[in-house]
């Protein structure tokens, strides 16, 4: 059984993992506040001690150096978030918000504070401003923003100030991070700051009322990578098939 067959399988699995991430991006091509994910692959030595070894081939005097590539396999190293801004589209809803610039809304989930760019807000039965997952938006002290029931107009200023019927009811905490790549993706378009030493910083980003930030997934990029990935998968399969044919020949014809 040639080891090259396992290399082929390894490559095919890597392309499948790439395809999984691409499908996830495509599925979220119109999710507000969605940030695309790029898979990152790296090569891992099967057995680190064998890399670059000079091995004596049996019954010869010549050393055969195995190429390090024979002993490497491809592995999914990381899923990196693409932090580019998605397009901002006007919707006309007073409770649709978008952050223009670098910044997140701060929301309170049962497990702690989360950060999101998804600004589709609603009011719950107590008048708190909540996201579509039911998490209340909080201000700089962690208190929810409560809009008095029956308010005719809700205005949200560029700095996150919420005004209901000309009375200020709170100011949303819009924050940014020095290194957004360190934030953890928890799904539902939200991110968590897992490192307590990293602080949320104030930002000059403006909040736009009546607009939503759409997904930053570019369909053209996803489709062309998809073509590349599915063809690479096919070629890996052909490689495995070639090994199978060689083994078949060895087993069926040479052995006779």
């Amino acid at each position, binding site marked *: 059984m040639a080891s090259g067959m396992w290399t082929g399988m390894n490559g095919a699995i890597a392309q499948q993992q790439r395809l999984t991430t691409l499908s996830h991006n495509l599925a979220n091509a119109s999710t507000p506040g969605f940030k695309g994910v790029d898979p990152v692959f790296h090569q891992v030595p099967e057995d680190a001690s064998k890399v670059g070894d000079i091995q004596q081939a049996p019954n010869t005097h010549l050393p055969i150096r195995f190429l390090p590539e024979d002993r490497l396999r491809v592995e999914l190293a990381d899923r990196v978030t693409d932090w580019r801004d998605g397009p901002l589209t006007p919707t006309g809803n007073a409770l649709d918000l978008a952050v223009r610039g670098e910044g997140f809304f701060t929301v309170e989930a049962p497990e702690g504070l989360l950060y999101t760019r998804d600004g589709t807000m609603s009011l719950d039965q107590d008048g708190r401003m909540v996201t579509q997952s039911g998490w209340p938006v909080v201000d700089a002290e962690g208190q929810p923003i409560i809009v008095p029931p029956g308010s005719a107009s809700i205005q949200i200023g560029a700095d996150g100030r919420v005004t209901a019927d000309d009375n200020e009811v709170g100011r949303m905490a819009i924050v940014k991070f020095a290194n957004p790549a360190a934030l953890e993706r928890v799904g539902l378009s939200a991110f968590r700051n897992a490192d307590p030493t990293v602080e949320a910083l104030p930002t000059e980003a403006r909040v736009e009322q009546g607009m939503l930030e759409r997904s930053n997934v570019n369909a*053209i*990029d996803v489709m*062309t990578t998809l*073509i*590349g990935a599915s*063809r690479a998968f*096919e*070629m890996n399969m*052909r490689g495995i098939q070639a090994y199978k044919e060689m083994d078949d020949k060895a087993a069926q014809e040479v052995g006779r």
Partner: protein
Amino acid sequence: MIRALYSAASGMKAQQTAIDVTSNNLANVNTTGFKKVRANIQELLSQTERAPGTATSANTEAPSGIQVGLGARVASTQKQFSVGPVKPTGTGLDVAIMGSGFFQVTIPPAGEIGYTRDGAFHTDENGQLVNTQGFLIEPAITIPEGVVNVAVGQDGTITGQQEGQEVNLGQLQIASFVNPAGLLSAGGNLFQASGSSGQAVVGNPGENGSGQLEGGALEGANVQAVEEMIQLIAAQRAFEFNSKAVQASDQMLREIGQLR
């Protein structure tokens, strides 16, 4: 093959941005003072496999090399500052600039200066001159109660009539820039100065190369609908050609995958 795939994808993305720009121009074909934008597309860098002029033997050189380009990208979206058509409206506080230059407004709450070509001015409850969004015009001009027949002269002086007497209410100032295309679009028909636009040079209308003012008129958008439609067709076809290149690459990759 993979290079062709990604080159074609970059072409499609560049055309997509070009269509976005054209579409924005068309959406603003009736916006007062709107300046159309043009997407400048540039080729991406090339990979050199053999440089031209490499020696092919002891005393000969290759007359050309092997360089493969990697696609296209949008280098810049450039605002075109040609003057749009000026339409008389008959409203005394409508002003158009018959040439280059910008009106100045103060943007609340921080008070930074915004620049605009949109001269549809109004008075607020205190009689101060404001733009359509309610931002104060800089320098601040107040129209006292009881003043009628307000008109703007060619040099920017605003005059009115109070109890039969003519009164001078102030003079509008115009800001000029070395590189207006470098201004930042701030939305709401406003621009802001940036590092590449240069400093604003403020003066009376007609000074510093700025145009004189025309009261009772508004400047329309400088968008030519026909030109934008041709752009749209050209970009759409280029997008299609690039998608054919993507399909061809896909076919060829499939052929490779099926080699026996």
